[in-house]
């Protein structure tokens, strides 16, 4: 079908022309949803029509209003205007509880588990199996959770305390929790942003079986590959407006990106092959019992070293230990050939090492501080004289960074917690860049970032390395790592399983080494 690219809005009555099924099949329909935060519009015209048994991809750039829209559907936010219809009934959910009651469940983008409870308790939060009316049936809860994980093929201990899990596992728990509600509508806001491809595969299987049972799924992801693998319909938002929707079969990847980004994207230039020259970073014999063992690696000037591995392979733990953010049992590091003692991140920063951590809420951002404060936070000495902040220097830099990374924010003084997920990630990136590092460690750097911004980040990394710096990039996305790294080291169960040049590597080879 050759629908022309529409940049304006499509009138509601035209929706039927796009091949929509009869109303009886529609689980949820929302029209004209608008929402503003203290006067700033986040969503102007949100729409969706979700059919029974369909996986509906909701696409849009960072800050397009997807999460806002989904939170409204779920009763977590109140819309300023607009209508939500649930199987023909107009509904106004005042709380998530009401939406849950009405057969809607959500996996929110910002993971917020109860950290000090067990996995099982988190899964059955608010609907604990009871005994005698009032008492929690803990045994049943644990058994149910264990059975659920077995069914989903997730490897998680139902008795573990949530706080002890990696971000990835927390995300799996959230997925399991939403699925276990057996609701008719399942909203997934970037469910795979933190997990590996293997787990994503498991999730897709689960989604397919839910789909077969007639569940309608709204699926948000910036991984277009995933969307094309799992979804059958799409809706695109841009800058808070509804742009277009239709069956996924009728659109190709290139055009979808065009709709999302609203401009042309230049193709990513392939990384030129290069000679390994002077070593910038040499890490030797890093070990921490039970996490990673005997890790030795080096990164040369101008090089991007990729670290690949399955979830829980120990890459993040190693990187954090290297950066001084986590303890280690042994290990030493040299920068430009001279030894550097790293006991805390401040030591690493002084030695020219900066890091983008995997868990941006936990160790990345100060959520209550403003965009501006977060961007300059790690390099305050560059914005101050005699201990006093130079506001003008700060203003200029922050304005530049906001433009450079296309951070969509109402103001540089907005608390960073009010930014969309992808834009938060860009703030973390901007901060690390501001420290003017020689070596950049980035753990899942494009987590939750849209296709357009990803390209910017890739080209930034490429230029950064070309300027004589080095990058250590941890990624669970094989295409990303293949396209951007010069060399790839694969972790398996806390050890280095192998190493290859990106040019020689293939998807199969990496997966084989990793598992």
């Amino acid at each position, binding site marked *: 079908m050759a629908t022309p690219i529409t940049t304006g809005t499509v009138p509601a009555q035209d929706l039927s022309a796009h091949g929509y099924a009869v109303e009886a099949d529609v689980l949820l329909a929302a029209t004209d949803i608008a929402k503003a935060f203290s006067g700033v519009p986040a969503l102007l015209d949100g729409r969706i029509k979700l059919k029974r048994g369909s996986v509906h991809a909701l696409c849009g750039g960072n800050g397009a209003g997807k999460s806002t829209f989904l939170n409204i559907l779920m009763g977590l936010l109140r819309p300023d205007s607009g209508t939500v219809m649930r199987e023909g009934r107009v509904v106004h959910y005042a709380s998530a509880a009401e939406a849950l009651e009405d057969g809607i469940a959500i996996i929110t983008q910002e993971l917020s588990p*109860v950290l000090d409870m067990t996995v099982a308790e988190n899964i059955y939060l608010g609907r604990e199996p009871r005994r005698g009316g009032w008492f929690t049936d803990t045994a049943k809860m644990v058994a149910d959770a264990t059975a659920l994980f077995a069914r989903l093929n997730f490897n998680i201990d139902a008795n573990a*305390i949530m706080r002890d899990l990696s971000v990835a596992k927390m995300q799996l728990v959230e997925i399991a929790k939403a699925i276990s509600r057996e609701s008719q509508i399942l909203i997934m806001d970037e469910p795979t942003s933190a997990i590996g491809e293997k787990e994503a595969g498991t999730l897709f299987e689960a989604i397919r079986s839910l789909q077969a049972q007639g569940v309608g799924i709204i699926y948000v992801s910036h991984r277009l590959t995933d969307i094309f693998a799992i979804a059958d319909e799409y809706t695109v938002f841009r800058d808070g407006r509804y742009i277009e929707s239709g069956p996924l079969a009728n659109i190709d990847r290139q055009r979808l990106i065009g709709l999302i980004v609203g401009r042309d994207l230049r193709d990513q230039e392939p990384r030129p092959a290069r000679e390994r020259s002077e070593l910038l970073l040499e890490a030797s014999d890093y070990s921490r019992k039970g996490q990673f063992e005997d890790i030795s690696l080096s990164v040369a000037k101008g090089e991007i070293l990729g670290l690949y591995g399955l979830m829980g392979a120990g890459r993040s733990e190693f990187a954090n230990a290297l950066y001084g953010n986590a303890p280690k049992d042994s290990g030493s590091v040299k920068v430009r050939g001279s030894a550097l003692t790293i006991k805390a991140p401040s030591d690493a920063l002084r030695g020219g090492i900066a890091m983008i951590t995997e868990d941006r809420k936990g160790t990345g951002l100060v959520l209550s501080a403003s965009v501006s404060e977060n961007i300059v936070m790690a390099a305050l000495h560059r914005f101050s004289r005699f201990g006093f902040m130079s506001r003008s220097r700060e203003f200029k830099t922050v304005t530049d960074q906001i433009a450079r990374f296309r951070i969509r924010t109402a103001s540089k003084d907005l608390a960073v917690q009010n930014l969309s997920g992808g834009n938060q990630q860009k703030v973390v990136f901007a901060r690390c860049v501001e420290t003017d590092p020689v070596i950049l460690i980035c753990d899942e750097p494009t987590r939750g970032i849209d296709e357009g911004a990803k390209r910017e980040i890739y080209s930034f990394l490429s230029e950064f390395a070309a300027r004589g710096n080095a990058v250590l990039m941890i990624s669970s996305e094989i295409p990303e790592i293949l396209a951007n790294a010069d060399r790839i080291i694969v972790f398996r169960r806390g050890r280095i399983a192998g190493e290859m040049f990106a040019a020689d590597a293939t998807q199969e080879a990496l997966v084989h080494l990793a598992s």
Partner: protein
Amino acid sequence: MTVELSPTSTDSRRAMAGRLLSRYGILLAFIILFVVLSFAHQNFLSTGNITNVLRQVSINGILAVGMTFVILTGGIDLSIGSVLAFAGIVAGMLVTGADPSNPALALLAAVGVGAAFGAVNGVLIARFKVTAFVASLGMLSMARGATLLISDGRPVPNLSAEFRWLGQGFVGPIPVPVIAFAIVFLLAWIVLRFTVYGRWIYAVGGNVRSARTSGIPTRTVVFSAYLIMGALAGFAGAILTARTTSALPQAGLGYELDAIAAVVIGGTSLVGGVGSVVFTLIGVLIIGVIGNGLDLMGVSSYYQQIVKGAIIVAAVLIDRSRNSQS
């Protein structure tokens, strides 16, 4: 798949064991204190003294149990000392004079009045989002003023003997206030540990947003914590009144600090979501045993304050040092 499972589950078991040890660091601190005091004074372990200590801690114990609920939700209640005094006066007024009411009725009235104050706190905090600190500080002042007003600033004397039994009586060898505390403690333990409501208290304190998203009626849960706290403050007020034989308008001054201290020394986090009423019990006992032990040994008042402060810090240090692996 199995490859990954093996480290995780042993790890989690090891983590669990570590947590248990570290969590019971405060118990260790208590045991050390207890043993030291047993050697320091020969009467410390006498039945008479143990009974004394238990009776002495029962008021603070009842308050600290209520405070555990509030603190688990991430809140705080500063008003309990004043609410206790108000409820005590109300109970006292009912059981004095020529025709004293049934003590059970007076007790019920005290609990009801306390719950009413708690409800006001709860509404301000859960519904109107006033910070718990400010709301309960305002209530501290208001309840104390109201207490002075209804009592005209004077104690209510001559309470009926039946009522005084609540504070002074014994059941077998056990003082009634100790029984009251034991019942309150047990109920709270069961509620927090085994009931769905207990899960909700923890969930709300651990992460309100997540709790709300999961369909837990967070406002109601927060409200209920203050209601329970208020009711228990009223209960404690009645027992205190029965124990001091007249209802005193200046009763309970500063009791909030002791109750909060017991909870926090036990290791319950002021941020909410972590802790247990069992640890609160240990905290209550530590505070009680320090006071009793120092009195027994005749340590002078000034040194007593210094030693008391030092022991509290030391107890928590022992707890933390077992906890510092992470």
